[in-house]
């Protein structure tokens, strides 16, 4: 049976286990971090608490947040139908909101499957101080809740400049409540992603598009040829940065140490081999390879250039479209699968989520649909999501 949460108190906020909580074991779902008790809390957690939230507990994540929705964690052996821990707790009404780190789309997928809301904001708006780092150039702390208004409230509580994070943007706070009315807006459905999705998922997207039309938003399909290259580029950057960041877990300073070693090499190899799962290992090895001497320029450097091309392309798109629509998952339900297939499986699904990580734009999942907008256009996403929710009533 899946353990969704390790309780701390009787609060209304779940914090995913990639965010440090002072005095409470934090493992990012990995055995290698078992017993690691942080000496400080993540800035986002501190800010949420200051804004009046109380922490209910730490929600289970897949090791380093690399899997689909948390299926490969040291806490569980996986249910038949996969669900994300924080999203499920929100769906069941056990917590009001959750803070989750989005490095490769897991919280967006989880929100889609559980029918809840999640927003990964513009890169640099929420401090990354106190998160267990993996893919530093594209990961962000995001906010999850049952509806757009609660999601907006939680994000507003945690966003804003933090001098402890060198990539934190200068704005002290963000006003997310001043989005324009939807009528007259233009939305594009990304053809390449729509076509990849299952029929049920397509139906969800179409249904949402109808709601938008009812609100006076014009909706059309838009072809974005760079999508597959963006997916490949993010995989390369994410894997390389993850490799580099998890290299610090070696059994020397904290966390798990293998009991079987006679010298430093055995200590390193034993601790890391026993402490991390196959998905993490594959990611580490691939990430190491793309940085190696013969491969750096054709692979890593190329991916950094593709990132610029994609960023410019989306910059152009957002001159025409106020928002873009796409699925965040290829299907409406994931079934349990074997970890030996995890790398390709997660890669396959990351096509839907990669662009916002790659180029730092905000992406929100609401009612099973992913909405994307230009940098700092969270207010547009919230306005759309709230208005579309309103049409249900």
């Amino acid at each position, binding site marked *: 049976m899946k353990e969704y949460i390790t309780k701390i108190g009787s609060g209304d906020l779940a914090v995913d286990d990639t965010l440090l909580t002072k005095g409470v074991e934090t493992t990012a779902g990995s055995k290698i971090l078992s017993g*690691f008790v942080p000496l400080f809390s993540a800035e986002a957690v501190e800010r949420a608490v200051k804004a009046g939230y109380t922490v209910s507990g730490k929600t289970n994540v897949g090791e380093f947040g690399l899997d689909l929705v948390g299926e490969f964690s040291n806490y569980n052996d996986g249910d038949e139908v996969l669900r994300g821990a924080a999203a499920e707790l929100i769906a069941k009404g056990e917590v009001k909101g959750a803070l989750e780190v989005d490095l490769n789309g897991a919280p967006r997928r989880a929100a889609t499957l559980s029918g809840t809301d999640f927003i990964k904001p513009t890169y640099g708006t929420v401090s990354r101080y106190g998160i267990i780092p993996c893919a530093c150039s594209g990961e962000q702390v995001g906010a999850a809740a049952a509806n757009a208004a609660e999601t907006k409230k939680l994000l507003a509580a945690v966003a804003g400049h933090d001098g402890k994070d060198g990539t934190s943007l200068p704005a002290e706070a963000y006003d997310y409540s001043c989005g324009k009315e939807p009528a007259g807006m233009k939305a594009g459905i990304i053809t390449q992603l729509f076509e990849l999705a299952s029929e049920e998922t397509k139906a969800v997207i179409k249904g949402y598009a109808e709601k938008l039309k009812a609100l006076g938003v014009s909706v059309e399909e838009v072809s974005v040829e760079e999508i597959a290259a963006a997916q*490949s580029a993010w995989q390369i950057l994410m894997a390389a940065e993850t490799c580099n960041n998890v290299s610090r877990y070696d059994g020397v300073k904290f966390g798990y140490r293998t009991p079987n070693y006679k010298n430093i090499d055995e200590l390193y190899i034993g601790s890391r081999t026993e402490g991390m799962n196959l998905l993490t*290992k594959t990611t580490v090895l691939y990430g190491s390879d793309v940085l190696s001497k013969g491969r750096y320029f054709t692979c890593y450097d190329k991916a950094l*250039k593709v990132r610029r091309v994609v960023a410019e392309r989306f910059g152009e798109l957002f001159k025409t479209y106020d928002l873009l629509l796409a699925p965040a998952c290829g299907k409406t339900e994931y079934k349990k699968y074997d970890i030996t297939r995890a790398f390709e499986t997660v890669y396959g699904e990351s096509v839907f989520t990669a662009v916002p990580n790659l180029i730092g734009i905000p992406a929100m999942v609401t009612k099973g649909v992913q909405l994307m907008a230009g940098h700092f256009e969270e207010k547009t996403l919230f306005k759309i999501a709230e208005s579309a929710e309103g049409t249900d009533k």
Partner: protein
Amino acid sequence: MEKTKLDGLLSLNELQLSEDETASVLGAFEFMEGQEKIMDGINTENVEVMVHVMPMENVLREDVREQPFTREALLEGAPEHTEDSWQVPRLVK
């Protein structure tokens, strides 16, 4: 991806794989080889790398010293330590 190259990567990353896992990883590498080729479709001639998606510069701090953490607290979670140091098997005989 040859096995010898994978061995090099395993050594660089202080990891080991079982036979099944090796097959899985080699499969992943082969799969990614095809995926990387998709990037060839993007013309990146004269394109600068983009390391930071939200460009800023000179994010610097003043040279001020602070010491909010104690050695005892930092050592507490160490798998093996003395009163003042982390401890590993002896490196040089």
